[in-house]
């Protein structure tokens, strides 16, 4: 698998959040590392979490194990990008 740069991974995460949660591009563009996600976005219920993870797998060509899924990785935008980046670069 080719190594993906942090910028590409971050753009993919923004794209997935916009498409799955139906958020506007402007809103997602304004997310920074400290923007809270799980618990702060009403759109992000457990069904949406599953959708975000599966769509990230498709777009980044990664595989996420279900025992890796916990609230921490989705706490902030920065944590989700870091998780995706670790997966994509592994």
């Amino acid at each position: 698998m080719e190594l993906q740069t942090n910028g590409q991974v971050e753009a993919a995460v923004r794209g997935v959040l916009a498409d799955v949660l139906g958020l506007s591009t402007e809103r997602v563009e304004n997310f920074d590392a400290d923007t809270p996600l799980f618990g702060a976005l009403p759109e992000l219920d457990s069904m949406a979490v599953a959708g975000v993870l599966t769509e990230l797998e498709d777009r980044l060509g990664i595989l996420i194990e279900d025992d890796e899924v916990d609230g921490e990785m989705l706490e902030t935008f920065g944590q989700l990008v870091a998780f995706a980046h670790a997966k994509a670069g592994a």
Partner: protein
Amino acid sequence: MIDYYDWPGGREAMLRFGPAQGPVVLVALPFWEEANRIRGLAVAVLRRLADHGIGGALPDWPGTGESLIETEQATIIQWRNAHEAAAATLSDRPCYGVSIRGGTLIDGFAMLSGRWHLAPMTGEAVLRDVIRLRAAAGLRGDRYGLFGAESPVRIAGNRVSPHFLAGLAGAEPYDQPGVPRRVVRLGHDRAPADRTIDAVPPWRRAEPQEDPELAAILAEDIAQWIASCEG
């Protein structure tokens, strides 16, 4: 028009669209919450197909929609039988299956002139989604825990029988020898397909949004494929 069909376990509602003669498509929606997310798109596609002179049927399955059967009583064999019975009511016309996601796992019993599959998935992939969905809700467990459950399994607001889930193990979309099949996929799905359309998969959207452009593209694809099958 709201029509109905009889299957061995009862009678279910079936929405009908388009002309009463000529080719007709029978839609099999995905499972559970995904069906809710896709229904609007399916209806939009069927209306566009009517403009192409192609009839459409969108049935409820036992335990869905207006069905008198409890959701938790439904099994996948019932759905296959119901799909076969719905197709039989349309058998005086060339009937094509249009099946979406998990719906591609229930169109195998019917006598169809062809199968058009949108984002077909194996039973294993459905089970994987179920386990992930439950993990995201803080419920740990594997497939064996689901199959052996002593009460219905909650999947995004639906109470699903463990027997239904066990019936998904090893299930594959049906590619009947000698019968046309076309596979269309959406977005970043890299699995083999006859065509991949650049669009956000509506079954992933938390809030359904109308996508008339996608409905028109899918209807056009189905209409052209049926025209080529009818030769």
